[in-house]
């Protein structure tokens, strides 16, 4: 019995195994030949702490894919890298000759900086809440408080109950400044507005975000800022309005989502890749490239709401937007933890 089993294994498996080996060899060969053809492009790697679906991370990923298409970079990435593996994965890419390593380092801030010091010839540019470090650690962040402010103005005009809701992940500076900007935009155009803030204590828990949104709707909120996934679904269910976040999410509820701040990482990535290609050091804060003026953030298109939004509201937003772009109006940056009114 044993004998036959082994012979079956030998007969059936080993030719298959050989084929797999041959295939692998072929892939390596083709890969090896193809690589020199891409000269001119640089090798870029991204290390993300969360799955690629996380809205924040996804915006970086999308911009890098665009850079792959338009700037000819070679791009690969690792997702869901926990703090314990962060250094290993970063070093791995650095050793393999990647010239630019990017990603988000919020949970592994110190680790990322320590690794960067060991590879001075590699550029590290990470999403970070703190500053850049010489000689090679640059930072960027989602500075999209300007369109968040504009969305707030729309919400302030559209609310009938004068109660606005914000459902967000947790009170960290990146989240706080958007929430505060949203609320102050609303208060600028409507003095009677009260803002409610709920934190779900997690970046990825749509059922909980939905429950938090339902609780706010029960308390009278009729325009909600959906900082996290799950809120738009609650608004759709209860027939109230929503402001999306990070990307254009109108497709989730064309009649529910009016608009929302969009973060576009393309200007940042384009600038960084250009610098690295030219051999320029990148230990600086690229946050400015996420401002509206640089095209790094904007208000999502109105889609269905283009015809439904009152002309006066649209004109008001356009005026404020123009002032922001001209530099004559600055949306305040308030990173303190917001409290419900």
């Amino acid at each position: 019995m044993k004998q036959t089993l082994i012979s079956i294994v030998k007969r059936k498996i080993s030719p298959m195994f050989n084929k797999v080996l041959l295939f692998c060899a072929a892939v390596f060969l083709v890969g090896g030949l193809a690589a020199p053809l891409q000269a001119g492009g640089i090798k870029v790697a991204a290390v993300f702490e969360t799955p690629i679906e996380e809205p924040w991370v996804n915006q970086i990923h999308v911009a890098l894919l665009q850079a792959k298409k338009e700037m000819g970079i070679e791009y690969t990435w690792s997702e869901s890298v926990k703090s314990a593996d962060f250094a290993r994965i970063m070093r791995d890419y650095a050793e393999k000759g990647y010239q630019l390593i990017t990603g988000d380092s919020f949970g592994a801030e110190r680790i990322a900086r320590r690794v960067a010091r060991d590879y001075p010839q590699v550029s590290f540019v990470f999403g970070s809440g703190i500053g850049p470090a010489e000689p090679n650690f640059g930072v960027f962040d989602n500075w999209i408080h300007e369109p968040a402010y504009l969305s707030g103005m729309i919400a302030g005009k559209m609310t009938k109950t004068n109660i606005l809701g914000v459902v967000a992940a947790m009170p960290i500076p990146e989240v706080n400044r958007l929430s505060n900007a949203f609320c102050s935009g609303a208060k600028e155009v409507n003095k009677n507005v009260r803002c409610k803030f709920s934190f779900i204590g997690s970046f990825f828990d749509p059922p909980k975000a939905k429950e938090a949104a339902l609780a706010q709707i029960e308390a009278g909120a009729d325009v909600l800022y959906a900082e996290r996934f799950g809120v738009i679904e609650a608004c759709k269910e209860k027939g109230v309005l929503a402001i999306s976040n990070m990307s254009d999410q109108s497709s989730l509820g064309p009649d529910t989502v009016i608009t929302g701040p969009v973060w576009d990482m393309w200007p940042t990535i384009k600038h960084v890749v250009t610098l690295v290609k030219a051999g320029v050091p990148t230990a600086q804060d690229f946050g400015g490239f996420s401002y509206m003026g640089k095209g790094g953030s904007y208000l999502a298109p109105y889609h269905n709401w283009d015809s439904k939004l009152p002309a006066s509201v649209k004109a008001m937003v356009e005026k404020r937007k123009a002032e922001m772009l001209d530099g004559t109006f600055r949306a305040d940056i308030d990173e303190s933890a917001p409290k419900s009114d």
Partner: protein
Amino acid sequence: MEEIISQIFQVGFFTAIIRIATPFVFATIGELFAERSGVLNLGIEGIMMFGAMTGFSTAYFTSSLWLGILAAMLTGMLMAALMGFLTVSLGLSQHVSGIGITMLSTGFAFFFYRIIFGQPSTLPNIKAFTPVGIPVLKDIPWIGPVLFEQTTLTYLAFAVVPLAAFLLYKTPWGLNLRTVGENPHAADSAGVSVSAMRYQGLIISGALMGIAGAYLVMVQFNAFTFGVISGRGWICIALVVFGQWGPWKSAAGALLFAMIDALQLRLQASSIIDLPYQIFLMMPFVRAMMAVEMRAPAALLIPFRKEER
């Protein structure tokens, strides 16, 4: 203050409690079956995640929500059977095996989701379960909308509790299961197969955990995301302790936990009590830790080897 009081006495608050409690009831009763047979199933967190993933994918491709639930159940049973192989057949450490199953299942969920859906720029979604009102009963003022305008899965969850109580305490099968958890040697000499009972306890636990995971992505939301379980499985482990290994008390614990959760969401949205919301999230755990009379099944965590004393 008036604002929060008026909110707490709203129908929506109680509806939310039942809605939030449902997955906890399923998974807690599941965990209870495993623990009463003497196996601590720490695979719960991962099994819920994997069940959520297969349930969602099946529903996505077949457009049948119930097939999704079935797939989630089967997934849970499969992973629980693997847990049984490690802890019952091989007699390995239940802690290590359980954590291993959680990591493996989470990894599987991640891996297969990527293979099936790739890296979508927008989350693929399904049409979720909608509440089904029970005729006549749903018209009872106040109680009607709270209890009788929920989804079918919620009704099932609350049917599972008396069913579990009946099975455990009123049937010979339940007696065998409990005896295996208390004194496997006695059960063995009475001709009860300890390993068969433990496998059964585990497989039931896996099925219920799978449904609990699927509920989160098919009722409370309409898409699968990786963090969707967010520690709910671990909470169920605490709820079993809180419920002193009894189905009614465990279900009551799930309701209490859901109430605290629904309450903290409402307190956050008002500005009355200025306490960090984490305090509220902590409360059921504190109660679980303070349970003085730990009435855990005597043979919990102890592998059974037939010819060993």
